[in-house]
């Protein structure tokens, strides 16, 4: 299969970037998009050109390291699938595919397709944690958790931290990411202890670095972990709850 790849090239944050077109003549349907970039880089290195810098690690959809915009869509054309699980079979022979870094004000470009997503980690540092030191926890079997609650917590805890939700949002909002963490921990026995405090501090940090919710819901379509859109309702609910109760829990 023949594909034209228009790839964003940018040497550093300090210089402007540009799209460069490359031709791949031997793409195959079963290749993932990351393997397509591997193929391109192999070609570039053979021609003594610098390969395209892009990130990936587990290549099985769980680490959240990979992240590219494909024709303007985070990760690629298939909904709820990370870039490593997107395949060339989504395209037709002769197609032009535009590959760019995740686009969001909160994700400054480092080089080519690599962006800085540590802003999400700072939201976690602000309070997405549980204040239990090693060795001090109670017996997990004495804390009853309903089957339903454990399953629901995992639906939200499944977030892989890739940042596709932020890139998908025209406002560059991190509501889906933050709401997922708030909901996950609000369903956990120890997590409930700081539920109000956590909502205040995480939301404040989120608003400091990321945009407001667009109310459109494209984030949930992009999310490779399938985090439900209700995470956003959770965020607003937790914000109001914390405001009205004025308590730590």
């Amino acid at each position: 299969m023949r594909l034209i790849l228009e790839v964003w090239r940018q040497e550093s944050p300090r210089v402007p970037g540009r799209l460069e077109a490359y031709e791949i003549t031997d793409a195959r349907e079963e290749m993932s998009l990351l393997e397509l970039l591997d193929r391109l880089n192999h070609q570039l290195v053979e021609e003594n050109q610098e390969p395209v810098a892009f990130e990936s690690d587990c290549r099985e959809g769980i680490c959240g390291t990979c992240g590219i915009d494909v024709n303007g869509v985070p990760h690629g054309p298939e909904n709820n699938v990370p870039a490593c699980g997107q395949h060339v079979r989504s395209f037709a022979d002769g197609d032009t595919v535009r590959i760019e870094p995740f686009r969001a004000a909160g994700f400054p470009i480092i080089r080519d397709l690599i962006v800085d997503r540590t802003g999400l980690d700072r939201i976690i540092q602000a309070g997405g944690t549980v204040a239990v030191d090693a060795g001090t926890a109670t017996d997990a079997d004495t804390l009853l958790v309903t089957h339903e609650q454990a399953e629901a917590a995992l639906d939200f805890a499944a977030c892989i931290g890739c940042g596709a939700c932020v890139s998908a949002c025209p406002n560059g909002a991190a509501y889906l990411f933050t709401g997922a963490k708030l909901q996950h921990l609000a369903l956990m026995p120890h997590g409930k202890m700081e539920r109000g405090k956590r909502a205040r501090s995480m939301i404040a940090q989120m608003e400091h670095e990321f945009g407001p919710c667009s109310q459109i819901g494209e984030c949930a379509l992009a999310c490779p972990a399938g985090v439900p859109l209700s995470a956003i309702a959770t965020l607003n609910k937790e914000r109001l709850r914390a405001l009205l109760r004025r308590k730590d829990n």
Partner: protein
Amino acid sequence: MTHESASAPAKKGAAMASTDLDALRVVGREIDGNVPDAAPDAAWDDRKLHYNLVNPSNRRKFTVIVVGTGLAGAAAAAALGELGYNVEVFSFHDVPRRAHSVAAQGGINSPRARRVDNDSIERFVKDTVKGGDYRGREVDAFRLGQEGVRVIDHMQAIGAPFAREYGGQLANRSFGGVQVSRTYYTRGQTGQQLEIASAHALSRQVAAGTCHLHSRQEMLDLIVKDGRARGIVVRDLVSGTVRAMTAHAVVLATGGYGHIYYKATLAKNSNATAIWRAYKRGAYFANPAFVQIHPTALPLMSQWQSKKILMSESLRNDGRIWAPKAKGDDRDPNLIPDAQRDYFLERRYPAFGNLVPRDVASRNIRERIEAGYGVGPLKNAVYLDFRDAIDRLGAKLVRERYSNLFDMYNEQTGEDPFTTPMRIAPSVHFTMGGLWSDYDMMTSIPGLFVGGECGWGYHGANRLGANSLLSGCVDGWFTLPYSVPSFLAGQLGEDVLPLDDPAVRQTVADVEGRIARLLGGGGVHPPDYFAEKLGAILDRYASVSRDPAELPDAIGQIRALREQFWRDIKVIGTGDRLNQELETAGRVADYLELAELLVLDALDRDESAGAHFRTDHVTEDGEAMRDDANWTFVSAWEAPPEAGPGAGKPIRNYEPLVFKAVPLQQRNYK
């Protein structure tokens, strides 16, 4: 340590005594694992009682470097931070949560023994020791089991939403090599939930100011002065800056080296550089040939696929493995009637069936494929079938247990496991070998500790499923926070090594020299070219079976490839900025050295044990045959001396292994 067991080796593995081997290595000395004198089940309590303590107000005066933020690293850093030590944490990732522990799927073992299926800590130790084919430390397995009980409580508290029964209690399931249910899980993403919980606990300490995070920084060397580990040298992967950081102790939690086989289930960036640099500076390397081949990965689907994808062992609880009875039967699997299917694991191992340990399963699957019974377009797989489980349990329950694994399979192959059996094949997955450490998890370099897969210890020659998440968590949360402070206590009042110390400057200069050499290569082939060639050599000679007649050949090929690497390596770009080709080149250069030691260890260890299956040591039933009289020890390889009679030859030291609670016996899963 007392050698009361009859298993104490008489000849220290000199049985082969071929001149070939003597040209390659030197047999060294017996080393001491520093194991407590107490009975194995009392050893950990005894050792904890003897550890030195540091007063809470003095703890912030000590700096500990932790390299890696997987389960072991994030946990060790967070726990030491919680205690009040000053912790400097390094990761080559952008954020801690990406570490490859995140990809573990099936579960974490814990001998909580709440059910009436007759589990206990002793049984956990027996399963672990026997599963490892008696080549791990029994007393370490006791500690793992004992601390493993409260690991679940802690991980649940800090955010891992373990699966629950309808009565509200923790759910658990069974795993390979075990006949009880002691595996706790969060669907098929247990590693992810434990990793995120630990990384977030580390974030809490970052916010508290006890842990300082240095992300996108890769450790490239270890600073050793007067025989003690004093710090590390790192390269900032964005700016290219090389710098040193010194500390009172260094903890390496940098993961396994399975990626040396190139096509493995490990993440693209997983590498051996940190532990290999430590080896070169004097840390012993234990059992490098003990590499686990996981039975249930996805088969390769295209030439450009550089990474294999794992399907959790937990699937073997409900999935049945089979191949067609007729060679080359390429019908749709649903059209092959039961009478024409060979459920070969159930047939050969009626007691354990599909849940035999990984090494046994992998060998059997590879045997079927190589004998011509493989399925799929490339005939490189067998089936893992859920038809009967769906009939028995219903699709809803099967979906709850494995939904994300089924989705992942579907994503990668375009096939639905609910209607078509999965195709699976063995793949390199985990390394039981790693830096040798004593009972306190300290390497042969004082002040250098290890945690998780980069060490050795519990798993012997074969790791049981769900024991790796356990060992990462136990090392980080409940072992290193006891043993590291005991080492620090003796250094009260001492400063860390100043950055202008000659030892620091020399190590930085060494790193800079190596980078310059990589950038100044002949410019013919990129690093991946060599990585792939090396992987092919190891897969051919040192995979599920090892033929001693062929192994010297493999060493010759590796040496030739290494020479070619330094002659022809092509690294595009410069070292003063983000350069992924340069990162890869450095890692491949180290793989090319480690690979030789791996093959040498496979040649040296003149027996079969667990995953190390030598074609010249096979029982009548075709199983691995150990040689307990000569090889009941861990090989602890020491880097070759530069001069003298043994110059250039690694030294194989040995620590005898003593089994008091689990008597030596041949494994039998029939």
